[in-house]
């Protein structure tokens, strides 16, 4: 079974600075997707960024970018020019492209605090 590990329970960043959230995963598959989801306090979870494993190029979405290291099974999220609205719980998630049902497997999450 696939597992996702987020080793940083909590991170802090100063407004306008850059922060990197770590994620590692374990799988024997070669075809899969990786995601970062953001969950603000008492609000619904939203997709931040998605990476297809077959793509070597790292995904970017405005201030959000990933560092995808397939051999190392690492998938970190970089947030540039941090804003107060970035404060939330961030979940890294794995989804098989071959397993029936394509279940989304989440890590335990990292709380990001943004200081003004």
């Amino acid at each position: 079974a696939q597992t996702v590990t987020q080793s940083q329970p909590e991170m802090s960043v100063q407004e306008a600075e850059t922060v990197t959230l770590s994620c590692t995963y374990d799988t024997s598959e070669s075809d899969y997707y990786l995601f970062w989801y953001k969950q603000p306090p008492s609000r619904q979870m939203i997709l931040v960024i998605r990476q297809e494993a077959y793509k070597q190029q790292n995904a970017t979405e405005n201030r959000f970018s990933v560092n995808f290291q397939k051999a190392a099974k690492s998938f970190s999220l970089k947030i540039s020019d941090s804003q107060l609205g970035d404060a939330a719980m961030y979940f890294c998630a794995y989804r098989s492209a071959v397993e029936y049902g394509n279940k989304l497997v989440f890590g335990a999450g990292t709380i990001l605090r943004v200081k003004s």
Partner: protein
Amino acid sequence: EAGVAQSPRYKIIEKRQSVAFWCNPISGHATLYWYQQILGQGPKLLIQFQNNGVVDDSQLPKDRFSAERLKGVDSTLKIQPAKLEDSAVYLCASSLIGGAGGELFFGEGSRLTVL
């Protein structure tokens, strides 16, 4: 576009009582998911529906949990009887397609406290 609707937002019950949560997915979304999010942990899939058929319920404690999606739209998740360890946020999500690349859209969740 309306998002995924869930109710109730909060529920407090005694152990051994029953509770039901309701979810209305985004219109046109064929795939519906129920996740359990225990405090300090990431969400765990309980059950996945494709239209009104079950795709994956391998992690659903079937002795006490049940879920249905009778007309392929709304879904209900029931717990009977509840245990203390069922205290969690129950998240409903939907997606347009069930494939691996499809984005999941989540509701705000239903927070259950079992005393």
